[in-house]
């Protein structure tokens, strides 16, 4: 507490947290940011799906274009990535509910859950691609 008494609060030497760019990547941090990335990126798949549905409602010409785009390699790529994003975000959401209930917050459990999200989302995406 000597520092606080000897100088004004502004000049206290405080430890700096490590900058993100020199911070060793950790599974818990990566699994967390992927939740945000997948959730926000899903808007691309939603825009394509809603365009396709609106086109089906409006006219044959509109549907022909939207359907051609949606079933092209580009559409397949968007929907396959979206399926993975949905499943990853889904499992991450379940993990959030588990965390919120006060469980699984120790690092070994959190890392196991992160691997579960990564592997589980890939497995569920493959299953989705096979079934649908």
């Amino acid at each position, binding site marked *: 507490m000597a520092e606080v008494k000897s100088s004004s609060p502004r000049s206290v030497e405080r430890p700096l947290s490590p900058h993100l760019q020199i911070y060793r990547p950790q599974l818990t941090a990566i699994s967390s940011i992927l939740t*945000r990335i997948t*959730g*926000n990126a*899903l*808007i691309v798949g*939603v*825009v394509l*799906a*809603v365009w*396709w*549905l*609106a086109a*089906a*409602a*409006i006219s*044959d010409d509109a*549907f022909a274009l939207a*359907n051609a785009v*949606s*079933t092209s390699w580009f559409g397949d790529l968007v*929907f396959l990535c979206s*399926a993975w994003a*949905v499943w990853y975000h*889904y499992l991450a*959401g*379940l993990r*959030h*509910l588990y965390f*919120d209930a006060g469980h699984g917050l120790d690092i070994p459990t959190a890392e196991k859950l992160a691997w579960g999200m990564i592997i589980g989302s890939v497995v569920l995406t493959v299953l*989705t691609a096979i*079934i*649908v």
Partner: protein
Amino acid sequence: MRYLTPRKRAIGKGSAHTGTHHHWSMTMSSVALAFMVPTWMYLFGSALGQSRVDVVAAFSHPFTAILTALILVIGMRHFAMGATMMIEDYSRGTARKVLVMFVTALATVIAATGLYALIRIAL
């Protein structure tokens, strides 16, 4: 001695300047979506690639139409709030306000377009 309680000093200091309402709303909508999304993915995936007549038939089914409407409303609200949280974490000032308006408008327009499509298909 401090006369302010720790809670009083903490209120309003978060990046969003609000409390737990946002978190609770996201929890509520996430649970709702968790029940609905897998079924919807199956229905959407089955309809994708079909002819226009079959797509219209699929989405005029009451269950599919109601499920799609619920996902549009709750899902787009969930997106708008999640995207707002991201913007509040990474930007500030006028840029933050403009971006929050943009994602909110985007989510609302998408939901409105999807609902219009469903109504038009149903009629």
